[in-house]
């Protein structure tokens, strides 16, 4: 019998190695897998390349991972925020490498990785600093930049519910990067607020089929109702 459930966040992040590339879901704090990140900090892996939309907020989650000195490089679209001081300090000190990617290209490159494409011509960024040095091409009268897929060794994402085969559904705008990161990583680890029985999620509504998910861990405290009460 296949059961992708693991008992604890520590078990969920086991095997994430020094130097790994790790996608982390979330847009700001919505969909951010806080408990998995905490477990990753405890686990100790460093020299990580992180792919996320942002570069951490405040003191928890990705910001804490950065503060702990575990991140060598970050690929993201929007690092600078009012409370991104941990990233800011390490970036200004030259301790973290930044690859800045327009948000839609970030999504498209992650999606391309999950879909097995070798590269894509995207119109976003043409003629800008972020396309400098990149191959460009005019196709049907419009200009495009060649962008390559972003793969990762691991993805840490947050979903609303899972069954033991790893099928996932999400909650509202916490969905964001979860489904495409799940496709693009070799090992996708999801923290979920609820475990459903097999067949308990309507097959028409499954957003991420279990084929894209390797481990799930139930985090009751990650339930949105709890977050709302906080």
């Amino acid at each position: 019998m296949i059961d992708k459930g693991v008992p604890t966040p520590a078990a969920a992040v086991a095997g994430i190695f020094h130097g790994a590339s790790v996608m982390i879901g979330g847009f700001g704090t919505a969909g951010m897998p806080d408990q998995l990140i905490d477990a990753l900090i405890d686990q100790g892996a460093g020299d990580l390349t992180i792919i996320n939309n942002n570069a951490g907020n405040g003191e928890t989650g990705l910001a804490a991972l950065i503060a702990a000195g575990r991140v060598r490089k970050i690929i993201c679209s929007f690092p600078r925020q009012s409370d991104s001081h941990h990233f800011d300090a390490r970036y200004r000190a030259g301790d973290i490498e930044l690859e800045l990617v327009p948000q839609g290209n970030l999504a498209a490159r992650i999606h391309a990785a999950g879909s097995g494409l070798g590269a894509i011509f995207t119109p976003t960024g043409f003629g800008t600093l972020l396309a400098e040095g990149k191959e460009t091409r005019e196709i049907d009268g419009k200009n495009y930049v060649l962008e390559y897929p972003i793969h990762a060794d691991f993805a840490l994402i947050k979903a609303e519910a899972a069954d033991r085969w790893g099928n996932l559904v999400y909650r509202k705008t916490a969905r964001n990067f979860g489904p495409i990161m799940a496709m693009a990583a070799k090992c996708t680890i999801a923290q979920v607020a609820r475990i459903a029985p097999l067949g308990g999620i309507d097959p028409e509504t499954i957003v991420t089929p279990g084929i894209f998910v390797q481990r799930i861990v139930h985090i009751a405290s990650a339930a949105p109702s709890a977050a709302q009460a906080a």
Partner: protein
Amino acid sequence: MQRLNREQMARRVAQDIPEGAYVNLGIGLPTLVANFLPAEREIFLQSENGLLGMGPAPAPGAEDPDLINAGKQPVTLLPGGSFFHHADSFAMMRGGHIDICVLGAFQVSTRGDLANWHTGAPYAIPAVGGAMDLAIGAKRTFVMMELLTKTGESKLVDQCTYPITGMACVSRIYSDIAIFDIGPQGASVVEMAEGLTLDELRALTGVPLIAGAALQPG
């Protein structure tokens, strides 16, 4: 000269958004436009973090941390709204499915280049977010901005001096002093603040301006 304030600018943009339009309102000043959309028009607001059919801010205490807009503010979803992932969301944008995108700007050139993501200052940490996708994706890109900087320089320029967000992507500028259409011939003036003449506007901006149809003597 009677300049528009921020609310008046937002109201003026809202006037031009037709029923049934799919619209993305950028962070900052453009977000205000939502407050002035006529209640009798059904207009579909998209937020690039994965929702379509965005409603107004929730009542205090009813905020949901999983229901936010691109500016990470709590919002609501209208009946008929939907959720989707980031690749689908930017496919809507990049694929030309959004009718109108309204963005703020540091500068716009008379050929429609937009600069709104980076001051280019050497100490600044760059951050782009969805700006470059929004700039070039929609069928029409509207810019909302005050026409002059605090030191009186025109933000409508011959050539952007800030790093650009997108090339030749702006179709219309709504400012506190005038409204401009951007086309192959350059910038044409659609409307001006009361009491302003075209020559005064030319002097303020320092760029070539065409008189739009509505300004022509009948």
